[in-house]
């Protein structure tokens, strides 16, 4: 199998995930985009691990770690999303702009 094949698949996943992160309003959908990007990274790790015939299995182990981190990230992310929903009845990202500087306030 050419190494390029899994790499291109991963690139496709990454590009799609990136678009999702950038273009979606719904926070849960943005999280899905993040998951896609993480999966792209994982696929690359595994593919390179297979290509290098790594006896330490570094690629696969790192993939496991990334999956673990992703699970933690989703758990926390969704907790935050639910919190936001409870407060505002909406999880549209472009409405969560409370932390930006107001245009009328001066530098202080």
């Amino acid at each position, binding site marked *: 199998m050419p190494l390029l094949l899994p790499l291109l698949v991963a690139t496709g996943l990454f590009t799609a995930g*990136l678009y999702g*992160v*950038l273009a979606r309003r719904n926070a849960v959908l943005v999280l899905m985009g993040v998951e896609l990007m993480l999966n792209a990274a994982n696929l690359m790790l595994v593919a390179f691990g297979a290509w290098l015939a790594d006896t330490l299995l570094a690629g696969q182990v790192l993939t496991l770690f990334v999956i673990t981190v992703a699970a933690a990230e989703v758990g926390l992310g969704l907790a935050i999303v639910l919190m936001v929903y409870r407060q505002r009845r909406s999880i549209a990202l*472009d409405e*969560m702009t409370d*932390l930006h500087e107001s245009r009328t306030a001066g530098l202080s």
Partner: protein
Amino acid sequence: MSAVLVVLLPALPFLAAVLALSVGRAAPRLVAPTVITGTALAWLAALGLLAGDISSGGANVSVAGPVVPTGGPRLGIDLHLDGLAAVVSFMVTTVALAVQVYSTGYLRHDGHARPGPRYPSYAALVAVFTAAMLLVVVADDLFVLIVGWEVMGACSYFLIGHHWEEEGARAAAVKAFVMTRIGDVGLLFGVFALGVGAGSFGIRDVTAAVLSGRMAASTLTAGGLLLLLGVVGKSAQFPLHSWLPDAMAGPTPVSALIHAATMVAAGVYLVARMDEVFLASSTTLVALALVAAITMLGAALAALAQPDLKRVLAWSTVSQLAYMLAALAAGSYVAAGFHLLTHAAFKALLFLCAGAVAHTVGSTLLADMGGLRRRMPLTASVMAVGLLALAGVPPLSGGFSKEAVLGAVEEAALGHSPLPAWAGWVLLLSALATVAVTAAYTTRAWLLAFEGPEAASRAASHGVPVYPPTDPPASMAGPMLLLAVPAALLGLAGLSGSWLPSWLGRGGPGETGVFAAAVEHTLSFGWVTTVASLLLVAVGAGGTFLAWRSAGRTDPALHLGRARALLTEGFRVDEVYQVTVVAAVQALRAVPAWVDRDVIDVYVQGSARTATALGRVLRVSQLGQVQVYIGMALAGATLVGLAAVVAR
């Protein structure tokens, strides 16, 4: 055995200081025993070395340490102890021990059982200072010597600034540090010149190179003059002398140890140790003689007019150090060493007495004293011993050593030494004049402090509780009495013309050399100078006494008229510095100020203004929408990656 003692000599006080500092906070009680024990052990080591020196007629102990790879001249961590070093180290440890014991009483505040909170650091600094001085004494390498030399300077800075809450103490500390530093720069370059010239930084290597004539005359002269600059700074000689009177802002025991007996003597010691270097170049020798001649008379005159007892002693120290340098210039390091020893004894004694007076009177101004002879009989008697020794009255120590110096200078004036005869005459006349002035100011100090009416306004003027002055406690009186013995009797060592030379001998083949015949290795007393000086003492003392009597037992210095103010301010040398050096520096300081404000600050403030302006622009992009940020970041990262791809 002796080698071990030589190493222990500086190591013991240093270890004591480290210990004292480490336990100082937790157990202040242990500080005094620690430092006194360390100093006492060093004193014992010095005593052992001195005994060996006296019994064998000249010590000669070398300790070779590791050699530092320099790629140039040899630099070894070596120690060497000769007769001179043995005697001086014994003197240093004796004074240091006395000062350490004395300090436990001096730094005790009224009504307190223990010394104050600054005592641990103070005691540790004094111990470090002792170690550094001993390192200078036993150093066999110029860089080892410089290490001790600089550590001494630092300790001196801290100790002068002991009362750092006082403006004067801080200023005096800085002044002492800066002025000695000027000299130290000279010393450092002198060491470089001599070391490179001799191919080694070892002191004996340098002197050997000088004796064998291997060193170029120009190198020798340059190195000697530069060394002389260091000596002038450290020993407070003209023109770098004015820090020493100001340094009296420090505690009196510190003045006794550092600014009378040891640190200022380091310069003299260096010249004595390396006198081959100075004797080999008549330029250096003349410079040394002129510095000594100017300093001794000027400082003595300045001492005559001081209103402050400690400043009198300080100026007299400057003057007496010049005596030693005069002997060295005349080619007699034995006479110089003799005076160094006696001076250390009686000057330390005088300072301790002055401290005792100040401690009980609450002031060092002569105007606040008067009539103390009846109040403090013990202090008065030992003070009398010290003052008489200082005035050079036989059979007290100062009388003999001063005669030795005068004898050496007379030999020089008669052309029996490498010093040109004219310079010898200048030196001799100055020295004789100084004898009279010295007698005058010692008499004045005695009369003002211990005779006459008691100062009635003492308490009112200084807000100190009114209680009659008394003799100091045992911890202070003990060291005073201890020092009174050598101050009185040390001169007897000069009775035999051969004892001191053999004790101070180098003990090695260095004795023989091209200058061996020319250099005085014995003490000589000339009848002419002896009689002349005794007469001059009588004139100076008697004149002062008469002036005092005639002026209604007031300050005889009042007779000096207009000159009094000039002398009080030390010939206004500081003002000269103020209008020349200081003014020049302050004028120059406008340049970096301008650079800082109009060049550097422009960039700094410009960057701030740019950042602010950019912030105003970039604020538009801060929409608070996280996706926009991510998108921008990724777009930027992509651009960077793109640049990397394209650039390749």
